[in-house]
């Protein structure tokens, strides 16, 4: 028995695939998601409509969506930056936590005295530095000892979560509010350290989101115009060729992993500066921003500008999930849909390499 379709290798990749694949993947995920919903006794159209409504169709929904999109944009760029080099850094989750720790440290330390502008800039830099240092452990192990970075970066996510718990719940650290005895929580930052928000077309946009857009543009320029971007492309295609032409592959791996961690670190800093205004050990771990970032990166096909767009899409989905959560809309549904989106995005990549051809036509052609 022959399958009705077969795969034929593509000789070249048409440009329209760049946007067609994510669109097809999203639609595919919605279809498969509908099957899951139907099988569990839910009405898919109803669920999808409510996600659309609560995620995108009102001023309030958009504000909430951009808020959720901010960390996702950073973790998405974090994953994309490393994946581009072939380094599978799935430690965005932990790097985001550690970035938040760094930003909160600086905010608590100089927040009361230093000028506001300087405080905010130093908070961003501290988030970057902490995230970069945490990620560079993974990069160094990979480049020096050829240690599998997938597992090390993942283990470090769990370790970062334990560090957060230790700082807030199980010690009397600098980050913990000494007044909180029964319910330990983070020490609140001075009001003047809160990052600004801007009104753009009636929607409030956080400083962190604008930073994400700026970072995406910088990354795009790096990839298109800089020597580092060029070398990243060569190493990803063929590490051996890169070594032969004298590219310092080991150094590049460490640098790119650190850069990737720095991006997630800004995401963590923005959680502190934009939204929570203290080190929120529980809230940070509740949202799985790092793992969702992998979905963002894959659907954006590792393009930083695409990551912003996809982050807003998935931010809307996540945001709708928060506001709909209840017996009608069980938790886990959003994660399931996100997983399906990643699943179809991975499957959709097949279209870059192959085209689908019907076997019937060729059979006819042979018969004729």
């Amino acid at each position, binding site marked *: 028995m022959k399958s009705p379709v077969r795969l034929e*290798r593509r000789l070249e990749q048409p440009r329209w695939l760049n946007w067609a694949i994510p669109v097809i993947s999203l639609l595919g995920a919605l279809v498969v998601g509908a099957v*899951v919903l139907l099988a*569990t*006794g839910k009405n898919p159209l109803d669920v999808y409509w409510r996600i659309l409504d609560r995620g995108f169709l009102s001023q309030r929904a958009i504000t909430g969506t951009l808020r959720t999109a901010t960390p996702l944009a950073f973790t998405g760029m974090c994953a994309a930056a490393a994946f581009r080099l072939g380094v*599978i850094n*799935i430690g965005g989750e932990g790097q985001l936590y550690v970035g938040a720790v760094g930003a909160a440290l600086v905010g608590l330390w100089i927040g009361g005295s230093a000028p506001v502008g300087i405080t905010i800039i130093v908070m961003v830099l501290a988030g970057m530095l902490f995230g970069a240092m945490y990620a560079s452990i993974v990069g160094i*192990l990979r480049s020096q*000892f*050829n*240690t*599998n970075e*997938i*597992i*090390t970066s*993942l*283990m*470090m996510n*769990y*370790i970062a979560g*334990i*560090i957060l*718990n*230790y700082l807030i719940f*199980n010690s009397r650290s600098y980050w913990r509010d000494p007044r909180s005895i029964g319910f330990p929580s983070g020490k609140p930052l001075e009001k003047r350290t809160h990052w600004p928000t801007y009104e753009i077309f009636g929607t409030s946009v956080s400083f962190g989101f604008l930073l994400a857009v700026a970072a995406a543009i910088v990354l795009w320029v790096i990839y298109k115009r800089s020597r580092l971007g060029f070398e990243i492309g060569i190493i990803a295609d063929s590490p051996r060729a890169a070594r032969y032409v004298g590219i310092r592959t080991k150094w590049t791996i460490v640098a790119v992993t650190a850069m990737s961690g720095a991006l997630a670190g800004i995401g963590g800093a923005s959680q502190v500066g934009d939204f929570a205004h203290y080190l929120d050990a529980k809230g940070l771990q509740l949202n*799985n921003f790092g*793992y*969702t970032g*992998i*979905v963002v990166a*894959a659907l954006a096909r590792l393009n930083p500008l695409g990551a912003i767009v996809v982050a807003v899409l998935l931010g809307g989905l996540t945001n709708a999930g928060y506001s709909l959560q209840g017996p009608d809309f*069980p*938790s*886990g*549904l*959003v*994660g*399931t849909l*996100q*997983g*399906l989106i*990643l*699943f179809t*995005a*991975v*499957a959709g*990549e*097949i279209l870059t*390499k192959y085209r689908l051809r019907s076997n019937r036509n060729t059979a006819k052609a042979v018969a004729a």
Partner: protein
Amino acid sequence: MNSNLFIVIAASAIFYGTPLFFAALGGVFTERSGVLNLGVEGMMLIGGVTAAWSSLHVGGSAWFTVLVALCVAMLAGSILASLHAFLCVTLKANQTVAGLSITIFAGAVGLSSYFANIWKVAEDPVTRQVRKLDVLGLADTPILGPLFFNHTILTYLSWAMCAVASWYLFRTKIGLQLRAVGESPQTADAMGINVVKYRYIHTMLGGALAGLGGAFYSLAIVPTWVDGMTKGAGWIAIALVIFGFWRPGLTLLGAYLFGALQSLGTVLKSRSFDIPGDVLDALPFVMTIVVLVLVSTRFAHKRIGAPAALGVPYEREER
């Protein structure tokens, strides 16, 4: 004698190591066929939630219910694994990201949590559990009792499986062909071995074992459903495949080592040792990194045991 600290840790190492071994043994089969499965964590959780549901809702004697629950968990794990195989083998997708998609799809905040919510699994403790046995009435024997005669049926099953798996991989023709598929699918294909079939079957076998490992969490260790209850065990299992050099026996030893690390917190806390709990919680994760570095440095060049075609999709046209 039996409350000797060393004996207690060794016995609980076996208890906590059992699900790790099941998942890791599944990984050995999957990776021996040349497929990298990073979806283990998701498969374990799906196994855990379906087993908990079955244990709560399937009627009959306790033994029958538990047996059904274990079978359901294995089935659920292998269905998920068949999706992974479809992506990796049929669509020749990137195996790393495919595995991640399975874990995100089914994982702690995904389908397993969704199922738990709509089936209301977490509300009741699982009463029909996998319990520790008193084999031949020898459970109270000094030293040997807790080590060998006081485990769950699944632990004994895992010992049998370890032996069978070694025999299967290294002493049977199918095992030889499986290894050929993982080392050089081109050669295997030329020998007339159906590469696609071998990869599908062993990926699904791996998923079934991961599901069984997950069921051990919800039916024996906790034993109630908690979202994300495996807490990274699936990832440690993936690392164990590497530590075990893709061999069942060594994997069993590695699983018990990490079982000991996982149980250390519980054991030491119950004896009021003054060690911060967070340090103990972090220990398995830190040790995974340390051991992984050791293994990758010393053996990086020789690459003992790693199937040569691991993670590489097989394309017939390419030569």
